[in-house]
Structures are given as C-alpha cells and as structure tokens.
C-alpha cells in the first residue's frame, strides 16, 4: 500500500510541476525554488510530517522534502538553544544530500569530459 502511495504522491508533485512549466513562462529553476519554499511552508503546522508517515519514501524523493528537512533541523535545534538554534541546525538533516552531491560532482567532473 505504501508503494502505491509513494507512486501517486511523487507522480502528483511532478505532474503539478509539469502543468506549471507548460502553462506559464516560469522555467525549471523557478519551479524547483517554489517547491522548496512550499515544502518549508507545509511544515509550519506539521502537514508534511503527516504526509511522510502516510506516503513514506515517495515524500522524501521530491525537492519539497528538502525544504521540509531544512526547517525540521532548524526547529529541532531551536528547541534546545533558542533563536540561535535556527542558524546552527539549518543544515543538520540536509547536509548528507548536499555533501554527497558536491563530492560526486567533483569526482565525476575530474574524470569525465563534456559530450559535445
């Protein structure tokens, strides 16, 4: 059942992005930025947390989960250290993804050449 939910949720988010891309003048860069903000916004009232418990991995894959993890890490630290925790904890949960992307990019760009 969680697999069906994953498929439907991830597909629906991508479909929403595709509809925006086809019918407005916004580019892919605009849409990913909007979706990150949307993911952070949905976490104000724990809505995205509820989606994650129902949908599982399908909610962790779209870029909306990036915003969700940013605000989640910041708030977890803010509970302990007050307002300064919003700054220290911002990248706590997303650091793995960003670091992995940087390292893989560096390694692959050393060994591979542009195709054209």
């Amino acid at each position, binding site marked *: 059942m969680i697999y069906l939910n994953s498929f439907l949720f991830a597909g629906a988010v991508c479909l929403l992005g595709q509809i925006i891309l*086809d019918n407005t003048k916004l580019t*892919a860069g605009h849409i990913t*930025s909007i979706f990150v903000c949307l993911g952070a916004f949905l976490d104000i009232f724990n809505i995205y947390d509820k989606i994650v418990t129902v949908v*599982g*991995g399908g909610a962790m894959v779209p870029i909306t989960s990036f915003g969700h993890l940013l605000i989640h890490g910041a708030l977890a630290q*803010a509970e302990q250290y007050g307002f300064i925790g*919003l700054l220290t904890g911002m990248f706590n949960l997303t650091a793995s*993804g960003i670091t992995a992307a940087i390292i893989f990019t560096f390694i*692959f760009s050393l060994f591979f050449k542009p195709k054209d």
Partner: protein
Amino acid sequence: MRLKDYNEIVNRHKPKEHKVQNGIIAFVSGGIVGLIGQGLIDIYSYFLEIPAQEASIFATVTLIFFASLFTALGFFDKWVTICKCGLIIPITGFAHSMTSAGIEYKTEGPIFGLGSNIFKLAGSVILYGVVSAWIFGMIRFMILGG
C-alpha cells in the same frame, strides 16, 4: 505585412506542445522515482537493520549517486528532455544540475570554472530553501515555541 498576419504565421509554425502527453510522462516517471526511493528505504532498512529515518538518508544518497553518474556518462540529459519535470522535481534533478554545471565549466579551470559555477543552477534551491525555512521557522518558533 501587418503585425496580425505576421503573428498568425508565427503561431502556425510554432512547434506544438503536447501538454497532456507531457503531464502523463511526468506523472509516471516521477512516480517511478518515488517507487525506487521507497524500495531503497525498505531494502536498506531490511539488510542493514537500521531505522527507516537513517535508511532514507542512504536512499537519497544512492539516488544522487546514480543521477550524477548517469549525467557524467551523458545519457541523463536525454531522459530529462523526455521526462522533463518527472526527473527535475525529484532530488535527481538537483544532482543533475550540479554535475552538468561541473562538467561543463571545468574547462575554464578549477577555481573560476568548476568552483564558481558548481552551484550555478542548484544555488537558487539552497538560497530560497534556507531563506524560506528561516522565515517560517521564526514564525513557528514565536507562535508555537518550536
């Protein structure tokens, strides 16, 4: 030639966009990426015997690795032109934008080429993500207290 006639001719020769077809392809390909994410979480949490939260980190890193590798090998670009948002919206699009920028600009040197341009496309995601998370975090911290 009047402007109205000109616009008519331009509209006739514009390539037609198949919006419905694009939507279906984006839905199916995005859904498959979501399925792979959930499948990886189950595989990792079963074989490595770790909780689902840690397994989701492994799954995200795996997706980023394969998106970077396929971009470097050259055939991820073709998939993106077919699937469009189905591969741009998931985390694969983040890795794809970084790796393609890195490989493209590395000819301009390691500092001002690769180093300055690696976040050329992915930087907007991080910038607006951090700013919006900070603002919404402030709002929630002041209203609900964490």
